């Protein structure tokens, strides 16, 4: 039990997917201007990351490895993720329109979100089992969401402050992300 707790905290804070592993930076900077949008994007990433990690794990274990096709990992994973995103989008639209309304527009963005593919790849490289994979993907997704919401909160406050013209927009977003990453370093002593 303790092992899983450490894995969870480690993936969420210590090795935060955005701030320490450099994954998913485009949406991190791109969708962190309003906290409402940040919550939607974060939710979509958690949802898709968990499903993608589980499915790619099964694909790797039961299709790629038995047939000696593991060199096609990249190709297989991206195709799985792309079709998964399409499928989830269609499913939500039909079955849960309320959720689709809040997550729908972020779903297509997720195909090119390297956090999702990155999580799936890390799980394979670390040779995790299925349960660990799902837990790790969930924790990493939550880590992404936390970082995104925090950054959005700060940027909302900054939007009404006077900043040098050249710093506005993406530059200040990146500098803030750097400072947050520095703050997250403090978690390194925790585990």
């Amino acid at each position: 039990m303790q092992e899983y707790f450490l894995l969870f905290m480690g993936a969420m804070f210590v090795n935060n997917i955005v701030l320490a592993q450099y994954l998913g930076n485009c949406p991190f900077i791109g969708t962190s201007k309003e906290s409402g949008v940040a919550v939607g994007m974060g939710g979509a990433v958690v949802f898709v990351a968990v499903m993608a990690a589980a499915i790619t794990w099964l694909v790797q274990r039961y299709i790629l490895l038995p047939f000696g096709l593991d060199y096609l990992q990249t190709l297989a994973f991206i195709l799985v993720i792309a079709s998964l995103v399409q499928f989830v989008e269609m499913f939500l639209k039909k079955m849960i329109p309320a959720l689709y309304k809040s997550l729908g527009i972020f779903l297509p963005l997720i195909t090119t979100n390297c956090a999702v593919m990155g999580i799936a790849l890390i799980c394979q490289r670390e040779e995790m089992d299925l349960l660990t994979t799902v837990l790790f993907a969930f924790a990493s997704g939550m880590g992404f969401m936390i970082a995104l919401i925090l950054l959005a909160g700060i940027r909302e406050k900054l939007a009404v402050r006077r900043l040098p013209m050249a710093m506005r927009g993406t530059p200040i977003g990146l500098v803030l992300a750097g400072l947050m990453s520095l703050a997250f370093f403090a978690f390194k002593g925790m585990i």
Partner: protein
Amino acid sequence: MNRLWKEFSKGLWKELPPFKLVLGLCPVLAVTNTANNGLGMGMAVIAVLTLSNFVVSLLRKLIPPKVRIACFIAISATLVVAVELLMQAFSYPLYQQLGIFVPLIVVNCIILGRSEAFAYKNPPLLAVADGLGMGIGFTLSLTFLGSLREVLGAGTLFGVAVMGDWFVPLKIMVQAPGAFICLGVLLALMTYAENVQRKRKGLAAVQGATHDCGSCGGCANVAKSQ
């Protein structure tokens, strides 16, 4: 000829990724802890980008618009796997250094973005020029950022010590916070330089480069569905 040069050269300054066209940030931040890694990643991106532009452009009449994104992904993923194999075969240490960021080239917005915004609408020769230009611009930027961080963070450049004994390396520069701050400050400096020029011409100042989603494949879909 003129047109060819125009498409090639725009990637070198006017639309220089990732500084002017803020795209594909993950590899930009992750692998620029040394100049060498930046250069290696850049080379891989040049290869994939140029070839994917070429193939997409060749097949542009064949690919039905409805499934074009899926086709782009399949094409670029194939090229990425090829680059992965070649890198393992001929430059294994670099492959180990870059880690999961080699397979992640496939989700780099630049690749899909150029397929969608340029290669799908233009003939092969122009598409190759565009891919080469963008790729070389990207490589130069990555190498520059990598050099800067390596010099400040470790006191070396391409692994050779360049700073004197007095220099105390700022370890933080080769780690994650340094990556974010360095890129942010560079973006701001470039915008500042542009604003000085604009002021001379009597134009209003602009704000820092924005994360340009317009030319990214996935984002284009969002814009459409909204």
